[in-house]
């Protein structure tokens, strides 16, 4: 659509600006303030400049949490994206069963995060959970509260359970938009199933898949509630991801300065990655428009 130049449109955007300024800019300024100051209580602050940033950049605690976070995000993206596409390819195309699957698949998306945690906490317990009990009955030594590997497995399976549907639903919507003629043409050319997927379905899903990957990356990078409920970041620190570590630091120990410096760097990393994705996405949009 050709848009007209009109700077009065700013008035329409104004309400959004006011609300977002109140709920985003003001708090962020507080964070910046903390990151540059030290306090001994009583609201007395001392300027320390970039000291907290230096401390955080070199802290092994941050490095460990960041490493775990990257590993976690990488693993769940590697599982959820292919699995989501596979599920989408197998979904019924229309009719009663299509909406039946849609409704059931959206169900995990609408469960409050801590309830997701609770469900899996119960499900994985050896004494009262179906999963834990079954694994124990099969003779597998499984205990997510003591064994770091089991804790990781539980958190990853939980995330796959929680969010694969989102990828699948997005991919499904992408598939639905492919005109039937494409498939007929492929049939005439006697294209193999793989060729149909590789040269018709995958390119057509590219846009939505990028969004799915972006959303899953963001949300897994900020994951807090679910692993916190299930493992509390333990055993030891083995499932302490960035957000969990941050909340521990800011609200548990009240180390405001380092926590604020940590927050800002955390936010910047996310911004940077999002910007890359956003640029790629808008470029794709433009190519399609041509």
């Amino acid at each position: 659509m050709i848009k007209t130049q009109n700077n009065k449109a700013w008035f329409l955007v104004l309400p959004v600006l006011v609300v977002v300024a109140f709920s985003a800019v003001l708090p962020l300024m507080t964070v910046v303030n903390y990151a540059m100051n030290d306090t001994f209580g009583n609201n007395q602050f001392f300027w320390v400049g970039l000291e907290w940033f230096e401390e955080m950049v070199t802290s092994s605690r941050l490095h460990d949490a960041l490493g775990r976070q990257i590993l976690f995000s990488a693993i769940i993206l590697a599982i959820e994206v292919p699995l989501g596409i596979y599920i989408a390819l197998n979904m019924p195309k229309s009719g009663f069963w299509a909406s039946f699957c849609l409704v059931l698949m959206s169900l995990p998306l609408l469960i409050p995060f801590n309830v997701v945690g609770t469900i899996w906490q119960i499900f994985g317990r050896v004494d009262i959970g179906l999963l834990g009990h079954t694994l124990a009955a099969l003779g597998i030594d499984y205990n997510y509260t003591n064994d770091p590997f089991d804790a990781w497995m539980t958190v990853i399976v939980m995330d796959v359970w929680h969010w694969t549907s989102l990828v699948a639903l997005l991919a499904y919507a992408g598939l639905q938009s492919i005109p039937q003629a494409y498939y007929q043409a492929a049939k005439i050319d006697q294209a193999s199933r793989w060729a149909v997927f590789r040269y018709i379905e995958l390119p057509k899903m590219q846009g939505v898949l990028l969004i799915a990957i972006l959303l899953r990356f963001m949300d897994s990078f900020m994951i807090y509630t679910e692993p916190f409920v299930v493992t509390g970041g333990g055993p030891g620190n083995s499932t302490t991801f960035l957000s969990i570590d941050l909340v521990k630091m800011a609200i548990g120990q009240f180390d405001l300065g380092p926590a604020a410096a940590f927050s800002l760097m955390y936010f910047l990393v996310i911004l940077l990655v999002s910007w890359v994705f956003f640029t790629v996405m808008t470029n794709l949009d433009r190519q399609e428009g041509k």
Partner: protein
Amino acid sequence: MRMKTSAIVMGLYLLFLLLPIYWLVNMSLKTNTEILSSFTLFPQDLTFRNYVVILTDPSWYMGYVNSIIYVTMNVVISLAVALPAAYAFSRYRFMGDKHLFFWLLTNRMAPPAVFALPFFQLYSSVGLFDTHIAVALAHCLFNVPLAVWILEGFMRGVPKEIDETAYIDGYSFPKFFVKIFMPLIASGIGVAAFFCFMFSWVELLLSRTLTSVNAKPIAATMTRTVSASGMDWGVLAAAGVLTIVPGALVIYFVRNYIAKGFALGRV
């Protein structure tokens, strides 16, 4: 043959999705002794005591009321501010529009953990701590950008000639917007409302940080059972089941719009 493998794959996947939920429902219908002493696949001693506990104790059911109040407020606020902004983004070019749009989106990507403490201090200092409106405003952080994004996608699909015709017919902007434009993008408003509802309903970190007694959400109330005289597993499970119900109802009503909303790729 292909039909069959698809059915099997979908069956297995849905089983994987539903099994943990089934287990929660199963547990909510058992007595605590049955949960702890014997391992049963379905309740031997069917009881609704756990639900009765929740529905008769104000400290429990007020959690649901609080959650519903702030979620509703959030949906209304988000849509009210997002509608005009989305219209501006879809119809006009103005100074800094692209930067503004990206800046809005970055707020959707801000980790709530970063904002928890500043929010707490900000809302305490203006006397909004432990009110519904505080949580509703805090959730605007990620819901307003999302609503703008979704609505902009839907509005772009409405031809501009409609606006122009309406103006020639003598409609003023507000009248045109409410009477003509909003009905045209009704499904878009529905999808946006659905996602605002969803993200506000499932969020815990901010809503827990910003409330203590009067506006405490159900999700935060649930963490309480962990400490109270051992673990009341049955009640915990029942509370969990009840948090799933509103979401399931909403999905059922908007099921035909979901696919459409996803199709725009704007979630």
